[in-house]
């Protein structure tokens, strides 16, 4: 279970102060699957980075399974990232010139797992994302969708409590994006994996069971999804609810 209390994040951009997050309160139970949506610059990625302990809030309290992250030193933070969190990036962030298997093994190097066990666990994680046969391939030999699946396997290999993904489908076409969403749904349904992903795409967000909307650093809406879409559902305007179509317009404004 993770919980934030009045989290704020302010950083300087030249002379101006940017208030990326303002008093955000969020609570996610184990086994949930939710999407954080919002226009560009709304603070959704900043929130996810803080949830993944990749960044620290300026103010507020953040607890993972009851432990206060703000009070931890560098070493304890590294342990939290290693044991509790699996993070998937929009840019995949795989090590170049390194095989898929070794990329997946990377987090295990820091967990004191023996070489043999590392290989076995990494293979297992690759099987879970359906890429066991590409284990020896290097990132430049894989498609974008395959690279993202390797990245998901890497996030899963330490059996984290929470799987976080920042725009996981942002660099992929619709078809590949659907594959990634299908993997998240399967992990959540079949293994009870907690999944939180950030997206600007309301259609992708509708595949979860809860949608948290952020605007100007504040949570403006937090509501359950009555009927989550199944992966592979064709995209059409009809299935997007009224409330979400407003987000799309705002997104277009931000992009123009």
């Amino acid at each position, binding site marked *: 279970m993770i919980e934030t209390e009045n989290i704020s994040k302010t950083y300087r951009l030249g002379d101006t102060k940017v208030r990326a997050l303002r008093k955000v309160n969020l609570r996610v139970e184990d086994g949930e699957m939710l999407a954080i949506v919002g226009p560009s610059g709304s603070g959704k990625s900043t929130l996810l980075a803080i949830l993944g302990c990749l960044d620290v809030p300026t103010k507020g309290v953040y607890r993972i399974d009851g432990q206060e992250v703000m009070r931890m030193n560098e070493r304890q933070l590294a342990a939290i990232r290693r044991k509790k969190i699996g993070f998937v990036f929009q840019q995949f962030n795989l090590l170049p010139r*390194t095989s898929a298997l070794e990329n997946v093994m990377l987090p295990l*190097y820091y967990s*004191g797992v023996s070489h043999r066990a590392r290989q076995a666990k990494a293979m297992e994680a690759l099987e879970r994302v359906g890429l066991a046969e590409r284990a020896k391939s290097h990132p430049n030999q894989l498609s974008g969708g395959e690279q993202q699946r390797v990245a998901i396997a890497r996030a899963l290999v330490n059996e984290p409590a929470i799987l976080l993904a920042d725009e996981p489908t942002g660099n992929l076409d619709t078809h590949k994006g659907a594959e990634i969403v299908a993997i998240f749904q399967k992990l959540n349904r079949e293994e009870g994996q907690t999944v939180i992903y950030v997206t600007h795409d309301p259609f992708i967000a509708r595949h979860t069971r809860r949608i948290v909307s952020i605007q100007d650093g504040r949570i403006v809406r937090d509501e359950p999804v009555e009927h989550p879409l199944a992966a592979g559902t064709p995209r059409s305007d009809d299935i997007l609810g009224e409330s979400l179509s407003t987000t799309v317009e705002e997104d277009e404004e931000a992009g123009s």
Partner: protein
Amino acid sequence: MNPFENFRIALRAISANKLRSGLTILGIVIGVAAVVALMAVGQGATSGITASVEGMGTNLITVSSGGRSFQRMAGGSATSLLYSDYEAILATVGNEAAVTPYYAGMASVKNGDRTASATLTGVLPNYTRVNAYSLASGRLITDQDNLQKSRVVVLGATSAEDLFAGLNPLGREIQINGKNFSVVGVLEAKGSSGLTYQDDMVLIPLQTAYEVVFGAQAKSRGKNTVSGIALSAADADQVDLIMANVEFTLRREHSLTLTEDLPFSVSSQSQMLASLTNISGTLTTLLGAIAGISLLVGGIGIMNITLVSVRERTREIGLRKAVGAPKGVILFQFLTETLTLSILGGILGVLIGWGIAWGVSSAGLITTSVSSEVVILSLGMATVVGLIFGIYPAYQAASLRPIEALKYE
């Protein structure tokens, strides 16, 4: 974290990026090889010169005609060093030093159609001892030979080889200016020195040289002259005192006041050694400076490669932190990587530098010597340069929050 595991991560990173690793190593290799090779040449030259001067005999003082070189070049008026000067010096410092005069001149030295390239030297019996030669076979020139003006000759090792090509010269005859001389002894080789050909020697009795070979050529106003007088001090501490006495005696013999220039040079081996060592020391310093610049350029090479790859590596560090690597482990990985690369490059550099030095030696240019100090120094510098340029960017990257390192452009 176990250190072996860390080492493994570092080796994996090195082998996954062969081009980057190779370029980093290249800079160090060039720098270290340059230092080792240049210093080997410099030190080889220095020790060659030192050895040749030391080989001339310990505590050696030489007196030779012609003081200031410009006087000698002006010619004519130069005062000759006389055999009587030797007798006066012997009377003054004979108790503190062995004194021996010699007369050296050009003569044709032949055995049939074989010729020796040495100058002919007329000597007294103690010449070989003062100049630190020892006998290989036969006997030395004796007082008896001098009294009887015997036509006997003692050969240096190289001269014996030139004239007899491996045959035993003892008892055989050679021709000096067409006159037959009998070979009575051969000297032990002193070895090559690079400065003088110490084994090119043809020694005959001094009186034979005056009376039989050189005649009027060796006389000045009816008196026998000598080319030089060599003294070997019994005690090294006495060298300066003996030199002063020798100069005083020469002034008295030639009626010179203290303010007049002495037309002879009186020099000690240690003076010569000091000035020659000084020259070659300067040379070595110069070579060392050039080598140091090479090492610096090598270091800049390492820095360039590190800076070029810093963007990719910063993101790599961000990623490693994001998947849970503690900062200390990341720094240890980079430390291991950099140390492995610098030491590998350093060893390769030493081997290549050694190879160049060996090549110079076997090409017969200069006998080089690779000293362990230079090897250790250049390895140490390469490692330090590698560490500074390799670790500092890594330290900066590892101090960032993971999200900053991942976004680094």
